[in-house]
């Protein structure tokens, strides 16, 4: 199935004439697509048909937590009274502030954190916020530090964030069990260590059992412990980062709390901190006072990480999800997410090193090429796992089914894994056959970048 570009269907050039601005301040013309609404509707309807979402089938991307996004949360976020301008007088947006305060409270309870900011608009922005808070903390103590320690299995954003904040990255090799090597950690940390960034369970789905020792090592060196919340869906109700010794964490609401990923965003990356760090939170923060709720500037705030208050509609959806599930529902979500991952790992014929797993596992497609195997899975009508990462597993297929899959669906997924596992390299290399697009040439795309219809030229 092929759909022409909008510009190929209905392009129109308009001359700018007799505008209310003087000519020297205006452009000469504007050339853009001009479809009538029926054509517009068909265009995007067809595009949607060329796209795979969670409601099309299983989406077991490891570390991405592609769970079902409840419809009703969209309804809540679309309320007219949720659509207020950020610069209104505070007294007139008590509803919005009340909801923010409630969500801050919920997230604090879930993470075991004392204070939570909702401002970071994504997980990576949450990491940046957290690392800036760590930096502010050290500065406040006249103890500027230069390094952030990160395990080799960590998400790429951890490394990029540390660099963006001006830190040197110290990469920590995993031990043979796929976990943090405590000795290596002891050797790596020191008085330049601003923070350790850790995901727990890690990207292999393994709980860092030595977390208390890890925390002690880092804290003893004067560093802070940062929790990357990408894998929090594995632990709801069973363990809290705050209780494990983490000082700062971010939550990926689009992962753990079922706000939709929207083809890459928007998400939201609230950050929780211990009481000691609350004074460094972004400006402003919401608090309850006798007259209601108000924004205030934390005493040593790091300032802002978003122009306003973050991705509000996403936060509303997260609020609605948490309020719907409550204690029981959240705990059940994690229980079923973990059982689903363990069950699926058990069913497939690919080798699955390490364990025991929580919400995800990393299978090895070797000697197959993991990326090719993934393409072939598309022919089975399911979305493949994350591929070739973490590198600690050869030809990794990083798989996270989430709690949203039924046993029936997991069995279908396992059948797809196993069918692909049987196939030869030539078949895999020519996959996929079934989707509208066959294998797409990445080399051509990168070698001759054509990033707009203007660049298509001929």
């Amino acid at each position, binding site marked *: 199935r092929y759909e022409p570009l909008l510009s190929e269907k209905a392009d129109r050039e308009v001359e700018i004439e007799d505008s209310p601005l003087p000519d020297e301040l205006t452009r000469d013309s504007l050339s853009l697509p001009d479809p009538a609404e029926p054509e517009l509707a068909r265009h995007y309807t067809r595009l949607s048909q060329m796209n795979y979402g969670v409601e099309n089938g299983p989406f077991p991307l490891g570390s991405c937590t592609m769970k079902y996004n409840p419809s009703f949360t969209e309804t809540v976020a679309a309320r007219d009274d949720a659509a207020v301008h950020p610069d209104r007088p505070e007294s007139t947006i008590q509803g919005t502030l009340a909801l923010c305060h409630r969500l801050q409270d919920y997230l604090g309870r879930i993470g075991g954190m004392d204070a939570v900011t909702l401002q970071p608009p994504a997980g990576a922005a949450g990491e940046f916020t957290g690392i800036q808070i760590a930096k502010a903390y050290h500065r406040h103590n006249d103890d500027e530090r230069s390094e952030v320690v990160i395990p080799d299995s960590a998400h790429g954003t951890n490394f990029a964030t540390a660099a963006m904040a001006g830190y040197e*990255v110290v990469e920590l090799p995993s031990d043979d069990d796929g976990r943090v090597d405590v000795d290596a950690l002891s050797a790596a940390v020191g008085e330049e260590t601003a923070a350790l960034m850790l995901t727990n369970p890690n990207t292999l789905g393994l709980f860092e*059992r030595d977390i208390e020792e890890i925390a002690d090592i880092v804290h003893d060196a004067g560093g802070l412990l940062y929790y990357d919340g990408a894998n929090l869906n594995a*632990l709801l109700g069973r363990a809290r980062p705050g209780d494990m010794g983490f000082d700062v964490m971010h939550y990926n609401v689009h992962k753990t709390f079922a706000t939709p990923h929207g083809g890459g965003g928007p998400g939201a990356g609230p950050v929780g901190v211990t009481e000691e760090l609350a004074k460094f939170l972004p400006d402003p923060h919401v608090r309850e006072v006798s007259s209601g709720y108000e924004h205030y500037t934390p005493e040593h705030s790091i300032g802002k990480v978003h122009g306003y208050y973050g991705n509000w509609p996403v936060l509303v959806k997260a609020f609605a999800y948490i309020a719907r599930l409550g204690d029981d529902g959240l705990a059940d979500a994690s229980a079923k997410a973990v059982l689903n991952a363990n069950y699926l790992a058990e069913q497939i014929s690919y080798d699955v090193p390490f364990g025991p797993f929580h919400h995800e596992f990393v299978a090895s497609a070797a000697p197959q090429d993991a990326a090719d195997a993934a393409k072939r899975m598309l022919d089975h009508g399911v979305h493949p796992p994350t591929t070739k990462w973490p590198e600690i597993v050869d030809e990794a297929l990083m798989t996270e089914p989430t*709690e949203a899959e039924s046993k029936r669906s997991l069995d279908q997924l396992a059948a797809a894994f196993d069918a692909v596992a049987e196939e030869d390299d030539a078949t895999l290399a020519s996959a996929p056959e079934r989707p509208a697009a066959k294998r797409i040439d990445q080399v051509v795309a990168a070698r001759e970048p054509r990033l707009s219809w203007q660049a298509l030229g001929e």
Partner: protein
Amino acid sequence: MSESDESTTGSPYAPQTPSETAAMLSAVGADDVESLFDVPESVAFDGEFGIESRSERETRREAARLLKRNDDLTEFLGRGHYAHYVPAVVDDLSSRSEFLTSYTQYQPEVAQGFLQALFEFQSMLVELTGLDVANCSMYDDATALGEAATLSQRIRSISGDRVLVPERLRDGKRAVLENYADGPGLSIESYPMADGQVDIDALAESADEDVAMVYAETPTVRGVVAERLGDVGEVADDSDALFCLGSDPVALALLERPADVGADVVVGDAASLGTGTAFGFGLGMFVTREEFLRQVPGRLVGASEDAAGRRAYTLTLQTREQHIRKERATSNICTNQAWVALRTAIHAAWLGPQGLVDLAEDCVTRPRDLAARLDEVVGVQAPIHDGHHFREFVAHTDQPARAIVEDLAARGFAVHAVGEHLIQVCATEVTAESEEAFIEAVAEVAG
């Protein structure tokens, strides 16, 4: 599940039935689910967050209960976050679950729809700016500006660590820029403005080889259409600095093309098309020249072909990104605002070029006319700046601005206070029918 689920435990979004759970536990050789959690006793949590479970109906009711505490005001507010009428078809099409619930397009063969929509979004920004390369979104205007500043540090021809920004700049935007500047050690400095315009002489005087980037806006935060952007571009050029222009996709449908005034990067918030008022929810646009392509932050969708030789789209140049380049990435951005970009593209296509130009012209005439009406009100002088305005303007009030804001709120209207005796007023088509009542209310409180 049901309304009566109030009594049910568990997630309604986890399909496992009790018998399936049993079968699966048996398959993995576990006695119960809890035994699968490899959590040491010492850090185990008892599961009691103290968060009540509710039915869907009750949850909606609870959200309504909270949100109804917001007052029902007619907002004459802007300063970076704008309300335009968003056609219903934008909601309908963008809400299709294939779009809404999909992921970043790491498997392009099953993501051609979203990739093409983002490619079209990029193309629209290329047309609007006259520049070559648009990424497929940043978080908002403030973070896009921060990324522009860090981009300047990755460009070999640019030395220096001074970033010059207008003295009139939204506080929030500047605060974000300061955070982005902190890592690379950039210093953010203000240059003066005169009657709402860049004070070119003062800017030129301040500029030197240590300048990495000069930032200007049109329209400005006060709604003034900038008149000497070419001169700003020259100052930047003379300092071998990046010229970063802040603008808006609606304004760009009418105003001179950034490419024609020498802009190297265009940033801004594009959510005014497609989203409307959402407590500051944004869509950062980031458009630049081809020469900086390898240094661009964020995701890029490119055209390629598939094995059958047909045109196909894919994320490209991913080696710039964090998931591959890690600490040497051009940015840490991963999750972006793709779905908001989809909405903006749909809205822009719905308007079409004539619709966009008409809307932009309305953004010029409407505040002009409203300012003229307010200027007739005793106690109000509007606008305080001479230039052309876009959507909004600043007015002087004899009464303290804070009091005006409060008194208007009591009458059901919201405006900005931007100085002791300065208010800022933004007017678009969505407040058209409220303008008369607004003017009356201002007359009541301004005298």
